[in-house]
């Protein structure tokens, strides 16, 4: 299974990012291989639609599960369509979140926020 955590840095045990679409990196953790890789977020500075762009990145990475603090309605729609499960993370670092998920301490997103929709004209 492949898990994704949006993170602030691309090394060591990074802090989870407060934003899904604007996170600079995504930590991809493969539970079978027990391997972590960092994916750069290509849409972090996009004027608009970062949430949808991020969701696309997650799909392309083959993610099964996303651990995030927040998720906008559009990104959620794309993720749901792709069958990616979204879990509500806890603030802190990526490792403790993955641990919490594996121990079954995180719960699935019940609701999404309306999003910031940056750059709407």
């Amino acid at each position: 299974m492949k898990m994704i955590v949006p993170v602030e840095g691309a090394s060591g045990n990074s802090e989870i990012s407060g934003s899904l679409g604007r996170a600079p990196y995504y930590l991809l953790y493969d539970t079978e291989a027990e391997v972590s890789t960092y994916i750069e977020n290509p849409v972090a500075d996009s004027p608009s639609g970062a949430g949808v762009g991020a969701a696309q990145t997650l799909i392309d990475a083959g993610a099964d599960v996303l651990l995030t603090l927040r998720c906008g309605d559009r990104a959620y729609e794309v993720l749901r369509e792709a069958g990616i499960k979204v879990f509500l993370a806890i603030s802190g670092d990526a490792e403790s979140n993955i641990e919490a998920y594996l121990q079954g301490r995180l719960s699935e997103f019940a609701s999404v926020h309306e999003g910031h929709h940056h750059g709407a004209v």
Partner: protein
Amino acid sequence: MKVAVLSGKGGTGKTMLSVNLAAASGPSTYVDCDVEEPNGHLFFKPDESFGETVSVPVPRADRDECDGCMACVRFCRYHALAYSLDRLIVFDDMCHSCGGCAEICPRKAITEHPREVGVFRTGRSGDVSVYTGTMNVGEAAGLPVIRRLLEMTAFSYGKNIFIDCPPGSSCSVMECIKDADFCVLVAEPTIFGAHNLEMVSELVRVFGRPYGVVLNKVIENERDPSEEYCLDNGLPILGRIPFDIGLGRTCSEARIASRENVVFERMFREIFEKMTEMVSR
């Protein structure tokens, strides 16, 4: 002559001024581009004889033709497209209708379909032709409706056109002033008003448009930060509209001062004559 009436903030008197200028200098055309909340028609009460919906094209993919190459998803810089499990997801409200996705699709699987975003109406009020645009509730962008309005009024046929702009200095305002012969900046005598006047005056200078300022709600012998800004920076002042209870009441009752009162009619006509003079110079 095409005159754009703008201000950095709402409530300074854009509609009051454009309505009265149009009424005082008829036959003319009044175009309400404040499509989020158009209210010039409340003054003119035109007999609206013509109306049409405004639509923008949005993409749809033919699932049988689409092979999931994702060229369109990568192309869309607004991220209005996503591809998941053999299906192209389109977020209509994020689409800027550039048509690039349909153009770039190697299998020609994308076609464009109209999506309604607003309406415009036209009608007459005396010798003034009134054009009103209204965007649908929930829409993020008023630009398509504004463009349609300006397209409709691109030719003046010798009449003066007054464009009542949306407030601020964003892209919808730029659309309204880019073909204007003259820009009128309306300012009120507050520090906030002066700050917003500075912002719009910078914008009209970027566009290289001739412009002038109308000071509104002027109180005799009171400090006016907007006037100070004009004097300090050499902005031409076209006129001063007094903070007058009669004018205020006329406006709040949605009546047109320059049609009812010769003093106001003369005042608005003088403002207009000053612009004409500046343009012909």
